[in-house]
């Protein structure tokens, strides 16, 4: 039990709470625009950046973040080139990211254990600098979603209608993708690159069945993510489970409960 009051656990909890807020907040726009898989893609690219960071001895999470943002531009470009087949852009960039990452791994054999911590998350090693980074990203994400709530809603609901209303559709699309890159690259330290898209998508998947309105589905997704993060971290802390995996398994449990509860109820 003492673990719950230790410094590293408190930092983990704070970091987890911040990611539990930002991940579903961005996730809802991604899921509803049929870009659920973008989380995985950006996470894999981030790993390539992290690997480079280790190689050139620069703060890995920041290099990962830069990689993710650059690749988000590439995804957007490809998404427009293959309009209607958005998932193609995602598949291309994802395999590109994995390729670069594994290439860089082989260049610097020595840091494999560190890289593993980014693959599966190592929330207990969350340092003060990491927390500042997560905090900064949270402020940016919150500000954008609050300021552009109306525009993001219309864009997500129907891109053509948003364009006919004179909204800067390209810019808004870019904004969502860049924010996704920021959230994902900071979240991988917490749940791990392989699991990050769960935090983006599963809370939203639950809320699609439960929420009566768009506003409510945002609130619900955040609540569900926060419950999973808090309970997951405490359970993992007490019984010494892998924190990232515990959080994701809890999310899946909540999704199953939602589906059972809404059985026979089609929206």
């Amino acid at each position: 039990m003492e673990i719950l009051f230790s410094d590293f656990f408190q930092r983990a909890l704070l970091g987890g709470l911040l990611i539990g807020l930002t991940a579903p907040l961005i996730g809802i726009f991604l899921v509803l625009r049929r870009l659920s898989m973008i989380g995985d893609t950006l996470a894999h690219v981030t790993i390539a950046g992290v690997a480079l960071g280790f190689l050139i001895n620069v703060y890995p999470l920041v290099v990962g973040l830069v990689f993710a943002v650059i690749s988000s531009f590439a995804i957007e470009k490809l998404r427009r080139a293959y309009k209607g087949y958005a998932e193609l852009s995602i598949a291309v960039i994802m395999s590109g990211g994995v390729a670069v990452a594994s290439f860089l791994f082989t260049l610097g054999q020595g840091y494999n254990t560190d890289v593993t911590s980014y693959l599966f998350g190592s929330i207990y090693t969350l340092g003060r600098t990491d927390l500042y980074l997560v905090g900064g990203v949270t402020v940016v994400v919150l500000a954008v979603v609050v300021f552009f709530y109306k525009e993001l809603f219309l864009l997500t609901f129907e891109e053509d209608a948003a364009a006919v209303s004179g909204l800067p559709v390209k810019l808004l699309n870019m904004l969502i993708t860049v924010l996704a890159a920021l959230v994902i690259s900071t979240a991988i330290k917490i749940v791990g690159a392989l699991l990050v898209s769960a935090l983006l998508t599963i809370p939203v998947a639950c809320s699609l069945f439960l929420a009566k309105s768009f506003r409510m589905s945002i609130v619900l997704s955040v609540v569900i993510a926060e419950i999973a993060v808090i309970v997951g971290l405490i359970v993992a802390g007490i019984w010494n489970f892998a924190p990232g995996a515990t959080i994701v398994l809890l999310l899946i449990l909540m999704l199953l409960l939602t589906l059972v509860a809404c059985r026979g109820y089609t929206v």
Partner: protein
Amino acid sequence: MSAIPTADCHQPMIELRDVCFSYKDQHVMKDLNFSVKERDFVGIVGSNGAGKTTLLKMLVGLMPPTGGEIRLFGESIRQFRDWERIGYVPQKNALNMLFPATVREVVTSGLFTNKSIFRRLSRDAKAKLDDALQVMRIEDIADKRIGRLSGGQQQRVFLARAMINQPDLLVLDEPTVGIDAETQDGFFELIRHMHQHHNITFLMVSHDIDRLEDYLGKEPRQQNGKIKFFVRHSHDDLDCGETNLQHSIPLVGSVE
């Protein structure tokens, strides 16, 4: 919102001058000259692949023409900023049934334009919303999720969204696809009524040539490639400068 009182009040809302569109060296449209004037009801008819949707997309700025010029309300489309003057009703099948939005949220989104970015909705937004809901007789379902409604109800919701800014021009893209015949009749009745009594100009793409011909006559005004343009003018005898009827007058009394 009032008609502009000039010598010729039936001003062109849309002008196409020598508009061309080609896709991979294939001409979809060549030297199209056409104008939509105030209070026109223009039906655009053509088979699949004739370029109807392309034309519509060019007219609302979603796609640039490969040649020629498009003017909206007297202004080149590249400079045009008054997008709230145009209401847009998309194809119904663009909607994902699981999308978690209420009728109220969808209709309100009609107010989100280039001019409302960075701003809170104005105080009269609520009044406009209530008005649009009432006019389309969808107040009772205002808090339902859009995906749970019937096709006909959804179409009313989209119409309400397009009407919330009290636009001068309504653009409809195949609005009755996937709706049963009876509901289609009701829908046509409704937009006819809007055309005749609310001075709204219509531009509608449809494959439903029979229903359009009933209202617009059998002779197309113009044909370009495989696309035919049917036009009907409303109230030619009305005085220029007469304002739009208030939208709070229910539109649909005879339609239910």
